[in-house]
């Protein structure tokens, strides 16, 4: 029945968006029809994809890509831009849930493994991309057209970007599969903490790259200070927001859904005006609420209860935002980099887990949980584009293509892993 309704809704939309009906339409409301359509269409695609034993969010992303500005154009670039605010709200809610999934006791227990994996992934991935950049000069025009210093800078930046994992995708797959257990905890905690770490590493790489690639530039400690301010500011604001939620739950505890939406909206607004990271702010806030309020659990559960529509909207818009033009232009190189990143992720996770004395199964398998990439990596690519106008555009296009591939295969790999280690469905059993 899902397939029939999907086909009918699809053809209906095709008819509604046809040029013969255009004179009757009001283009100002194009985002409204697009949002309504994408919510039901992406969800049905997710359901069908799920029958093929793939995660629903892959379906949401694919539906977004399919209906987006590069294929069917049901959502124009303008529609996608108009839906950014709703997308931002959804991201804040997802980040609150992700933060709320981390408990102090678990973090303490896994601290050694988390930091070991984090450090070795970062070192091995950056080193691996530098080696690729140096060895691949003769094979890839992308590198050979640049000076050695520029190529080196580019490799460092690609490496620091490749370290990132998407916490929003990770939490979405975990919620969808109802997973619980050691792998789930470690992968989620590492992905979340890594986000903070990656931003700092990226800032350092950016300063170093500017120093290397632009001959008259001195090493810019200022960039580092700016990023530390961003990370510190986000943690501070996140703590304040978290404290605010804790107090609200303690003294008011009414209209929680509206309050949380208000929090998400104002966090989005404030973070934009202060240049902070809404994702980080909400992660910290969610973490504080879960760990320092007796009612935190109920709040996180309340958000989880409506998480499916939020995920559908967020990932479908993410899919529609993926730049297929960039993928078309550089898919071969992007594919090579995706495979290379996968190899390095495996090596980094393996070494990190081995040093932390995790069991051999974990050492070999857990890399699959760190493949997905989304917003943070995208934001960094935009910064590189602005910092290096000569080749930044080309770099951004390549990164967009890499993200597009990783965002499609990442959730699949994580879901497979959670089923393989028998953690999927464990949360439901506990309840």
């Amino acid at each position, binding site marked *: 029945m899902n397939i029939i309704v999907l086909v009918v809704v699809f053809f209906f939309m095709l008819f509604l968006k046809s040029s013969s009906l255009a004179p009757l339409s009001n283009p100002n409301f194009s985002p409204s*029809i697009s949002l309504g359509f994408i919510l039901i269409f992406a969800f049905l695609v997710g359901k069908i994809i799920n029958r093929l034993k793939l995660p629903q969010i892959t379906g949401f992303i694919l539906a977004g890509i399919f209906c987006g500005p590069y294929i069917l154009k049901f959502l124009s670039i303008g529609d996608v831009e*108009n839906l950014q605010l709703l997308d931002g709200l959804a991201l804040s809610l997802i980040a609150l849930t992700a933060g709320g999934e981390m408990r102090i006791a678990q973090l303490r227990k896994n601290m050694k493994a988390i930091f070991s994996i984090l450090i070795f992934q970062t070192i091995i991935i950056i080193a691996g991309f530098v080696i690729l950049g140096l060895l691949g000069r003769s094979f890839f025009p992308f590198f050979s057209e640049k000076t050695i210093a520029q190529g080196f800078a580019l490799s460092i930046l690609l490496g620091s970007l490749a370290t990132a994992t998407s916490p929003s995708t990770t939490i979405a797959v975990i919620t969808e599969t109802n997973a619980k257990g050691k792998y789930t905890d470690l992968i989620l905690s590492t992905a979340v903490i890594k986000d903070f770490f990656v931003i700092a590493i990226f800032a350092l790489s950016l300063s170093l790259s500017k120093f290397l690639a632009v001959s008259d530039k001195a090493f810019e400690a200022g960039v580092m200070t700016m990023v530390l301010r961003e990370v510190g500011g986000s943690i501070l604001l996140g703590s304040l927001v978290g404290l605010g939620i804790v107090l609200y739950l303690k003294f008011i505890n009414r209209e929680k*859904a509206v309050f949380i939406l208000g929090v998400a909206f104002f966090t989005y607004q404030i973070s934009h005006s202060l240049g902070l990271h809404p994702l980080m702010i909400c992660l910290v806030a969610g973490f504080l609420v879960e760990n320092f309020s007796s009612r935190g659990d109920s709040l996180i559960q309340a958000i989880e209860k409506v998480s499916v529509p939020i995920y559908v909207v967020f990932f479908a818009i993410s899919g529609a935002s993926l730049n297929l033009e960039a993928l078309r232009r550089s898919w071969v190189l992007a594919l090579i980099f995706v495979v290379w990143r996968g190899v390095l992720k495996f090596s980094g996770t393996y070494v990190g887990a081995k040093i932390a004395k995790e069991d051999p199964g974990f050492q070999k398998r857990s890399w699959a949980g760190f493949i997905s990439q989304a917003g943070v990596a995208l934001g960094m690519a935009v910064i590189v584009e602005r910092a290096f106008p000569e080749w930044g555009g080309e770099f951004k296009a390549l990164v967009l293509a890499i993200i597009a591939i990783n965002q499609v295969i990442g959730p699949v790999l994580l879901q497979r892993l959670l089923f393989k280690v028998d953690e999927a469905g464990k949360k439901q059993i506990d309840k």
Partner: protein
Amino acid sequence: MKAIFAFFLLVLIAFLGSQFLFKRKKLFLPLSYFFLSGLIYVFLGLSLGKNGLNVLSSAVLEGLKPLISLGLGWVGFIFGFQLEYRYLRRFPQKYVELSLLQSLFVISLVVGAFGWLLRSLFPSEPSAILYGMAVALGLLLSLNSPSLLNFASSDISQKGNYFHLARFLVSVSGFWGIGGLALVASFWHFPFFEGNIFTRGLVLLLCSTIFPVFIAYAFHFLTIKKTSESDLLVYLLGLAFFASGTAAYFNLPSLYVCMVLGITYSNLTRIQEKLYPLILYTEKPFYIIFLILIGALWELNLDYKIALLAVILLILRTVGYSIPLRPFGKILRFSFPLPTLFGLCFLSSGGIAIAFIVSLKLIYPFPLIDVFVSVALIATILGELLSPWALKSSIIKLDTEK
């Protein structure tokens, strides 16, 4: 800074609500229903909008526009979902006839009075627009909200004929008003047709009626098998949003399209018990956000004309619902008398009226539309403020005396 201030404003209102206002026993205290019905959030929106702190600036509102049109659809769906034939047929047919007569009378009264008043106050405006506005105000007055009676239900110990009749009338009256809105939006479609108005209008009206029926069947087929709560929520939101988004895209009223969707689905499905908790769970947050956004959209321009029109509209509501009750009661041969006093219980029009106002604001981008919004919102708010007192003086008194 403004955003932080606005955030604290939201918390303060929630705090006030939790401490003093969301307690049903205080329903009949002055101002309490103003908070209880959520109208305070319209003012919160107004203070956050471009006339206030500008946190919900024009750019932000543009980004949230899909949410507003979808919110309208949601209100329409919830309203329509309550119109279940199996439930409605328990009431005598004369109740439906009374509801129709009341609506027709109120609409005619307002069209007559405001058709003249508006032409006198705004002589330079095209008369077609002024008559359109008078019709819109008439349709607005035909709407009633069941919220007050639902809230008061537990406080009323003696629920007699008047209570049950009033509850029926306020629950179904929206059907006529929203149906009228669909007629106006189809035959007076914006951008205006240059010819063939009747045929084109009829096609639009048919489309806006058949399309949601079709969507309701899709929804029914999707939920015919056992469906989890989270899937049900997405189907519900997805299809309601698709219907309301489509309506908004073609400048048709989302409120009507989703009302038809709600009516059709509630009469098709057998899982009402499963859906009601879901609707209840999502209704309030949606409604509050909707009210805040509406407040932010409101271009408040208080001049004597607006104040005068709002007061007259409120007087017409009181008169229009009270005066003809006796003759209507006689024509329809009611077994109990319908005193003029009974008409006082129709002062509250709540969320459905606000949704109606916003529908028109979104469909018709005329300069005069802001005058309509201000008049209609002020009259609605005044009606809400007076309605608990009016309820106490009408139904409770009548049922007790009986």
